[in-house]
């Protein structure tokens, strides 16, 4: 039986906390928002005619277990700002409702603070942010979360109009030398395909185009391939547009069509900018506090062996992962701690 602090109440933190509590440990989750969920709070279910296996619904039982579990105490709207190594245990300085407190006697600490969305870091050029016809993928997820029954209303996504065409542009902020994020976030091909399917189901005549660079595996199960896109009636163009011009009759997307080797133009009513997984803004803070290593993208990894230090990293704090992999990673951290507890009691 150990005292364990889990920083971050997203899916990785909750997954770890549930298993640790089930093994009899006393767990405290420190969450800076007022409810669990992290980035996931405003994602929407993307099942319409079939379930496209985005794994979102697996998370519901996880969070209900976390809140109902006896062994877990959750501190909402709490920030961690100090960490001390006492002989034999750790102590965290936290700030809650303007007051400072300490949590002492901790045997293990799990850091699961998740990632930051590109739209939080980068609002893009002025035209992008003012033009209501251009939205970030996270906004579309929000609309999906609040979607109505499409047989009861003509506008299930509350767009305010019936879109005749939509364009997705992938790899915004990812895989680009300029924007410092020179890696692929792995998940955007998956969710943009799923969102496109929902739009196609709600508006059968809609013309959907996806601009992308390389089609990723789309998560554990759904191995998305060009055939999936064709079957779903989605036109995919293998390049990044050069320019987007907002005109009154719609958005003009200018791109180079590699098949024809010529500059082409596409008019659309709605433009969705996919956004990737970027290092959490607090990662630098954590790396100094817990002596962790920042990789060249800005994600964290442990320098010393986690089993010795007792400080574990879980989930997207270490790098881009989809929902299923993040849950597994959270549980894996818990199992590592539990198995280690079996071998020898936590001695610092």
């Amino acid at each position, binding site marked *: 039986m150990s005292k364990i602090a889990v920083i971050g109440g997203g899916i990785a933190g909750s997954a770890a906390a549930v*298993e640790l509590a089930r*093994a009899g440990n006393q767990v405290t989750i420190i969450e800076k928002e007022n409810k669990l969920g992290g980035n996931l709070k405003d994602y*929407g*279910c993307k*099942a319409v005619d*079939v*379930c496209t*296996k985005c*794994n*979102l*619904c*697996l998370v*519901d039982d996880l969070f209900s277990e976390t809140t109902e579990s006896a062994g877990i105490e959750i501190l909402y709207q709490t920030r961690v700002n100090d960490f001390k190594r006492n002989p034999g245990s750790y102590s965290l300085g936290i700030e809650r409702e303007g007051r400072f407190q300490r949590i002492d006697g901790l045997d293990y600490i799990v850091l699961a603070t998740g990632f930051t969305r590109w739209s939080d870091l980068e609002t893009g050029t002025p035209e992008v942010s003012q033009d209501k016809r251009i939205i970030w993928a996270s906004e579309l997820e929000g609309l999906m979360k609040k*979607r*109505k*029954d*499409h*047989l*009861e209303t003509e506008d299930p996504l509350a767009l305010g109009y019936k879109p005749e065409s939509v364009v997705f542009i992938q790899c915004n902020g990812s*895989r680009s030398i300029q924007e410092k994020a*020179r*890696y*692929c976030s*792995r998940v955007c091909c998956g969710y943009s395909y799923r969102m496109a399917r929902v739009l196609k189901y709600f508006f059968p005549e809609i013309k959907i185009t996806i601009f992308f660079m*390389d*089609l*990723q*595996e789309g998560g*554990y*199960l759904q*191995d998305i*391939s*060009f055939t999936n896109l064709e079957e779903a009636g989605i036109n995919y163009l*293998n390049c990044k547009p050069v320019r987007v011009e907002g005109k009154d009759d719609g958005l003009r997307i200018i791109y180079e069509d*590699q*098949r*024809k*080797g010529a500059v082409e133009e596409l008019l659309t009513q709605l433009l969705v900018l996919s956004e990737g997984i970027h290092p959490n803004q607090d990662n630098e803070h954590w790396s100094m506090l817990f002596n962790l290593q920042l990789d060249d993208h800005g994600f964290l990894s442990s320098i010393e062996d986690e089993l010795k230090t007792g400080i574990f990293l879980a989930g997207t704090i270490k790098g881009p992962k989809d929902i*299923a*992999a993040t*849950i*597994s*990673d959270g*549980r*894996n951290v*818990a*199992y*590592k701690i*539990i*198995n280690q507890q*079996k*071998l020898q009691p936590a001695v610092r």
Partner: protein
Amino acid sequence: MYDVVFIGDLIESPTLKSLKVDPELLLRCRGEIGDFHLTYKDGDGKVREVKTGTIVVNITAEREKPLPGVLSFEDDLPEGKEVDCLIFIQDYQTISPAIMSNRGLKMAISAAKKFPEIQVYYFYRSMRFIKDNDRLFEEARRLGILFLKYEKGNLVISAAGEVSYNREDISLRLEGKILMAPEIKPAEGLERVARILNLEMGPAGFLQVENVYLQSTLSGRRGVYILGGSRGPTAYSNLVEEAEYTLNEIGFLLQDIKPLVNDRREVDDQKCILCYTCYRICPHGAIERDEELDAMKVLNLACQGCNACISHCPASAISIVEDNNELIETGLRVLMCENSARTAWERMAGKDRFSDLKIETIPCAGSIKKEDIYHYLRNSADRLLILGCFEESCKHLSGDRKAYRIVNEVNERLKVLNLGENRVIFKRLAPRMEEDLAGLLSRWKEGNCNL
């Protein structure tokens, strides 16, 4: 007693007592998590039996070269400088999994370094990323490797090993050593192992059914895990993390194994005629023959409570120990699967609009019994709505298909006896579709049956 038996390749684990069994030599498997009995032949052909808590199937997949006579990403680089250019090709038949692009990139980089004076080409349709692929991709370009994206049709490889690539703006004729990403195919003995372990096969002959609940190495049968090549091409992408996670979970689970469901199912050995229907349709391999009694028996730690066996047993020999579902009420009745529709019902606002509906929770849509359905419809006004899960997101793997078939059968019979059409409707829902559920229930209440 072992903690884990590996069928195929063994993975070292400091804390777990493990044993390796060759897939071809595996003969029989009985029992359930915590108490599996495996019969197999050892090295010198002697038949042995071993008890183990869990089983991990870890059989490397077959590699198949897309074309004869070419090197594979998994062979060694050709020695010496016989050729004036090296041609790497991936995604030829299917888009190669990320693990293959990872290998291809590493090989191309070492080739460019080893033979700086010759030109290296890399043809791909979609570069997939895991681990450090992004960095490798950049490094390869910096080393002068020519990356060319192709589509089906504009890249032709002749038998003699010439590659011709033509697009609107480029056309190339290349002659050189060709290295291709192999196709990953199911291993030979996989189907036999599936039959011995009573597991449902997945798509393209790999071992695991595609299902949201079988993340990421679980099989349908509790305590049996499926790793790497046995699961399919994309499974290789995070093989190391999954292996570590699986062994850690086993270590945790074996400490104390509790039944997943609190009510138990029992087989009446007077009625059971050993027809094996239950054995074949149980999605979790939780039924096997009772050695002493001439009947089947339910393994309570393996059983996940979907009741498919009860609804499918032709002799009605299986029942829940303390089950008293009397079938008296009728009227508008809705059976909600506890894993999808019931969750959506809990999240739905305005339940009072539907107070006149009889809502009942069922463990799985596949548990509906056709004789009960006929009984529910005793009065002509009675109608039945069964709400189950989507394909590949049914916790009991094929419960939705079972329900779909039974409801079709029933509706056909009712129609042909003109006892009314669409009096029984089966609809699929996801747990977070509470809005759709509200719309569906109100339309169904008014008798509108295109839900």
